[in-house]
């Protein structure tokens, strides 16, 4: 069975880097591993060799058991359409302005596409471990709710309201334009928009049966996966992490661990209050002490935040080192996540 690890968290905390690090660790245990990345920084993309390849998983040079792919949202949506829609409907949808806009902007779209890719990768049976980096959409829960939201969109709730009936055919819809509600909607939205939306929803509706089965499958995989929350000590990621724990609890998903990225050595905290070895140059002594005190206060803030998360939610919080510059090789990536002892829990 494929083990799935989902790495989520606020923007800017290093989700993509940590996903890659976990994948390298897994691959080094001899497990066939795939990492699905989203928008990696250039150095990271170079390290993984995914810079120019895009959507299809490709072996990572120098790491025999590791494959990497970069999620291309547009390509994923096209694949979804071709899978679930009749050919003529699919062609019509792909040029429909509403579909294009949804593919670009529907907040759940990128998340849903990532979920589809995750499911495909699991079902391919090519991998023992699939590591999923999640899109930086508004709040990490998007990734978990995307299947249900996509299902709701396609179920034709809008159409039902517009026409007052369940899933009418195209001709029925147009005969009903005399209805007061549709007339009113026409004034608000303008005629062309209304009929474009109707066309779009009717076409989308034909995909419903296939897609609704799929959204349930994706949901099952999401629940079976290990969820890892990445954070840093900055206020925004910490707030997001708290909110995320609460909201995941509401949908009965328990995160497995927190990876606390960019932490400083805790011994700096104690060292900053102690006398130091004699340094002849008093100016240098003052400047370096002041520097240590400043970074030690940062280390203190990190420690407090990590302790609070661990106490409040009862999950392991792994503190990962602040490496400057960021990891640029596979070894660097493995070193970064080493404190999280990935191998221990992959062995379970």
């Amino acid at each position: 069975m494929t083990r799935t690890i989902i790495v989520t968290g606020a923007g800017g905390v290093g989700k993509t880097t940590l996903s890659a690090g976990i994948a390298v660790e897994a691959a080094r245990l001899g497990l066939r591993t795939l990492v699905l990345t989203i928008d990696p920084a250039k150095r990271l993309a170079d390290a993984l060799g995914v810079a120019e390849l895009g959507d299809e998983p490709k072996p990572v040079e120098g790491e025999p058991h590791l494959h990497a792919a970069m999620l291309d949202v547009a390509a994923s949506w096209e694949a979804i359409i071709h899978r679930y829609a009749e050919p003529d409907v699919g062609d019509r949808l792909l040029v429909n302005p509403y579909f294009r806009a949804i593919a670009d902007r529907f907040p759940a779209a990128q998340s849903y596409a990532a979920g589809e890719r995750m499911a495909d990768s699991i079902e391919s049976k090519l991998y023992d471990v699939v590591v999923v980096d999640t899109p930086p959409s508004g709040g990490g829960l998007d990734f978990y709710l995307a299947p249900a939201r996509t299902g709701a969109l396609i179920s034709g709730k809008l159409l039902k309201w517009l026409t007052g009936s369940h899933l009418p055919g195209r001709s029925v819809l147009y005969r009903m334009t005399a209805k007061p509600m549709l007339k009113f909607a026409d004034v608000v939205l303008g005629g062309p928009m209304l009929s474009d939306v109707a066309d779009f929803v009717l076409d989308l509706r034909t995909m419903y049966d296939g897609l609704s089965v799929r959204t349930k499958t994706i949901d099952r995989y999401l629940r079976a996966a290990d969820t890892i929350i990445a954070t840093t000590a900055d206020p925004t990621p910490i707030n997001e992490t708290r909110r995320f724990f609460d909201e995941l609890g509401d949908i009965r998903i328990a995160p497995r661990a927190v990876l606390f990225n960019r932490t400083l050595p805790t011994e700096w905290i104690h060292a900053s209050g102690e006398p130091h070895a004699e340094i002849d140059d008093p100016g240098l002594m003052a400047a370096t002490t002041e520097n240590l005190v400043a970074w030690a206060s940062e280390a203190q803030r990190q420690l407090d935040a990590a302790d609070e998360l661990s106490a409040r939610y009862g999950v392991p919080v792994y503190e990962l080192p602040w490496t400057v510059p960021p990891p640029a090789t596979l070894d660097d990536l493995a070193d970064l996540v080493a404190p999280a002892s990935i191998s221990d829990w992959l062995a379970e």
Partner: protein
Amino acid sequence: MLSTDLVLVSGKGGTGKSAVASAIAIERARRGQTVLAIDLGNGLGLGAHLRARHLTYKPVEVRAGLYAMTMERTAALDEYFKKQLHMPQGAPTKPIAGALSVLVDAAPGVREIISIGKPVHELWQGTWDAVIVDTPSLGQFRSYLRAPMTISELAPTGAVGRQASALAEVLADAGTTRVVLVTNPAELPVIETREMLEHIREEQLCPAPSVVMNRMLTPASFDDSDLNSLPTGPLRAAGVHQLSMERSQAEWATNVDADATLPFLRGVLTPGEVAVQLADAIGTIV
């Protein structure tokens, strides 16, 4: 013509845009302006930095002259129909709002114009000297800017389309709208900021942005050879960390032209303290 300022603050996630938006709002209020700060995201960031635990759709005064609010979808939709689209009395706005909440997920641009429509609507009310907007992310911000155009193309005849054209005009008016992009001296924030500047130049949907380089370390007075003379230990290790950070920051900072630089605040600071300290540093930049 509007005499009020609309300040749109955006930036890559994690760069500190809520802190900078709060700092701008605090600084404006200190100068005696009546300011409204709006969080278009989940309200957490702005709320924490302005020391307001729960922001709501109704603005609350968080310090003298400074009011803050967050978007609430249902309330925003209702207001959008009643006030912004000028629906007649007795119009069935409730079912329309219900349907629209579904449409908002489906039709391109509708969610965005309802969000970005709110600050502009507040501007039109004439209550505020400045409206400061904390937008969720660069991608979202770009959707906001493009939404009025998208809507005008898709729905040229309806009330939604007319409201959208009026919005587009305000957003593009350099006499009213200022755009602030917050970035950090690091790879992804700098690259994404450059891409955003390029998009804005091409699309001309808003005035040229000011770039704020946030979290820039103050250079230390020691160098590598000084550190080499120190014994191994925290004093030296913290020094090495400082100098590596400075080098890394310098490399990326030169890759984008910043109009202002804000300091990296180390230590045990609450979001509220961060915003106040940044407000001290931000001066008259924006």
